[in-house]
């Protein structure tokens, strides 16, 4: 542990409380939307001359690699991560075993069980159960798993909200033990603790198909879900209401175990934006989502010191006032390339009320396809805009994708260091 890490938590807390930190805090790897593809983690370990060992895949869908302490030190990262006990595919992240991704040896959890289909695609199974229908598919030569939609026939006149809530159950003692142990292991490490407890993502489209369920019931098809937010709004309300009740109970049980050791909590990853527009109106957000967001965030603020983290890709500036009103403290990934997401405007309008966790560099064009000089230039510009007065945690716009040149990631991190020393 370096001495710099000792002040990392304070740096993040300053940023989260809109005070000017000694330098801009940096996050990579604390959540499933601020991470790094396992192949790039391996490349970074090579670049920084760290021990060469297979990297653990801690998030199987996006194949995110675990960022260990030595790499955190090398990259200047100020955060650590607490993930739910089970992955989105329903198996525990434990008992690591070797697996090969396009020639790269990695480690995956014991429950990460796959088969190869006749096209050469890799299939991943819910809860590691090879007798269940597979719930994830990685195309041959691909880098990620996409959720397989397993939509059973349903009677639209007799939908039961319990079916869409099967994955939202009261947290058990075993999972609480895992969370408690995970927090204890990093408590006092000097870095800010960012937790994803699960269960508070309302209608997160990556989770709607139920990849961790052996036989998902209810509305599980992505298109059908989107349509239902318009045509079956009462049903969606019933699902969210049930989910919210369970989540509030779980948060209280988690709070009893981990207290205020956690600094920020990932609440919801539902995307409301597209590249150029939105998935719904502000009025729909307020009517369908905000009541539940408010219940969760109000509970968090009334009972803990955790800060509430909202992820939404795309063109979402129109929703920022509503997110603030609903009690969110942090917005991620700050997709500045989307329409209406101009960074200086965002900082000016919302910088004192929302923490921008992300926005450091574009991951659709600049980071994967730009030159190191272009990467440096954009990162420095974003730092100049977002850093003043705190309220900024440096991170890329969403995860660093497979295929991103390591020299570009290094150029980005060097730009952060350059900014600090300027």
């Amino acid at each position, binding site marked *: 542990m370096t001495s710099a890490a000792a002040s990392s938590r304070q740096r993040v807390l300053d940023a989260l409380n809109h005070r000017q930190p000694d330098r801009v805090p940096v996050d990579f790897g604390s959540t499933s939307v601020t991470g790094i593809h396992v192949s790039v983690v391996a490349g970074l370990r090579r670049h920084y001359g760290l021990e060469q060992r297979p990297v653990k895949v801690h998030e199987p869908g996006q194949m995110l690699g675990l960022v260990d302490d030595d790499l955190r030190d090398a990259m200047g990262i100020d955060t650590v991560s607490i993930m739910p006990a089970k992955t989105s595919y329903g198996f525990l992240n434990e008992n690591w075993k070797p697996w090969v991704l396009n020639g790269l040896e990695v480690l995956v959890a014991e429950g990460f069980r796959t088969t190869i289909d006749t*096209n050469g*695609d890799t299939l991943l199974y819910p809860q590691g159960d090879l007798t269940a229908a597979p719930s994830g*598919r990685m*195309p041959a*030569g*691909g*880098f*990620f798993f*996409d959720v397989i939609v397993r939509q059973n026939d349903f009677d639209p006149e007799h939908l039961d909200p319990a079916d869409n809530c099967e994955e939202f159950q009261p947290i058990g003692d075993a999972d609480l033990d895992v969370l408690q142990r995970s927090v204890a292991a990093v408590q006092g490490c000097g870095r800010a603790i960012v937790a994803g407890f699960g269960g508070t993502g309302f209608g997160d489209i990556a989770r709607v198909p139920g990849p961790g369920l052996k036989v998902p019931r209810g509305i599980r098809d*992505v*298109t059908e879900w*989107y*349509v*239902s*937010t*318009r*045509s079956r709004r009462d049903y969606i309300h019933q699902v969210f209401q049930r989910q919210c009740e369970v989540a509030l109970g779980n948060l209280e049980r988690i709070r009893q175990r981990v207290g205020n050791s956690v600094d920020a909590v990932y609440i919801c990853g539902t995307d409301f934006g*597209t*590249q*150029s*527009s*939105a*998935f*719904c*109106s502000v009025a*729909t957000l307020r009517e369908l989502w905000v009541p539940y967001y408010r219940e969760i965030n109000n509970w968090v603020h009334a009972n803990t010191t955790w800060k509430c983290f909202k992820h939404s890709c795309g063109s979402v500036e129109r929703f920022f006032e509503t997110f603030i009103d609903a009690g969110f403290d942090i917005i991620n990934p700050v997709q500045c390339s989307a329409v209406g997401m101009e960074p200086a405007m965002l900082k000016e309008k919302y910088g004192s009320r929302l923490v921008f966790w992300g926005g450091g560099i574009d*991951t*659709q*064009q600049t980071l*994967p*396809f730009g030159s190191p000089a272009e990467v440096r230039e954009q990162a420095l510009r974003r730092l100049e805009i977002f850093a003043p007065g705190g309220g900024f945690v440096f991170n890329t716009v969403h995860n660093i*994708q*497979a*295929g*991103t040149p390591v020299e570009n990631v290094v150029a980005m991190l060097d730009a952060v260091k350059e900014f600090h020393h300027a």
Partner: protein
Amino acid sequence: MPDLQKLYDAVLNGDQKTSVAITREALDAGTDPMVLITNYMVPAMDEVGRLFECEDYFVPELLLSARAMKGSLELIRPLLAARGDEPVGRVVIGTVKGDLHDIGKNLVGSMLEGGGFEVIDLGADVSAERFIEAVQTKNANIVCLSALLTVTMPSMRTTIEAMKAAGVRDKVKIMVGGAPVTSQFAEEIGADGYSDNASSAVALARRLRAEATA
């Protein structure tokens, strides 16, 4: 004879039950199926596109209207085929090799159908060979390539290169789209057009057809 304005309204409001019922009634009463499409359904979908552009409608509304339109088209298409009527264009659409994302592609396909095009949907993770085969066998005028991932965008380029090598590139216009795709990228890989949303994809397809037939 049913009130055909209700067909327009049903498509606009995404009411599939009503749009199918009125279409059936109208066809039973002897209405020319082309009249239903040209005078009511396409104008309704154009209005849906307009509402989407000005952000009164969003993806769920677009999907509901497209479903209503599709329900009616399923009744109409066999009649048009039987009498040899040609669509305004024939589009082969798919998400490129290595990419399984299909929501955006499905939306574009639905809106193109709503715009009067015949859409041959090859699905997701589609190889260049399958695009080429579809162009050769389906008499297509337009090929739409979709990609959501930065790592699969290069498949768009290789698909176009393979179409050139197979001698089918110049038989069609090629449109590209998807979250990381830009007009600059479209130009770089030699596509004929780029659209950043499903509604403007219809306008682009119409323009490309007009250019090709001018």
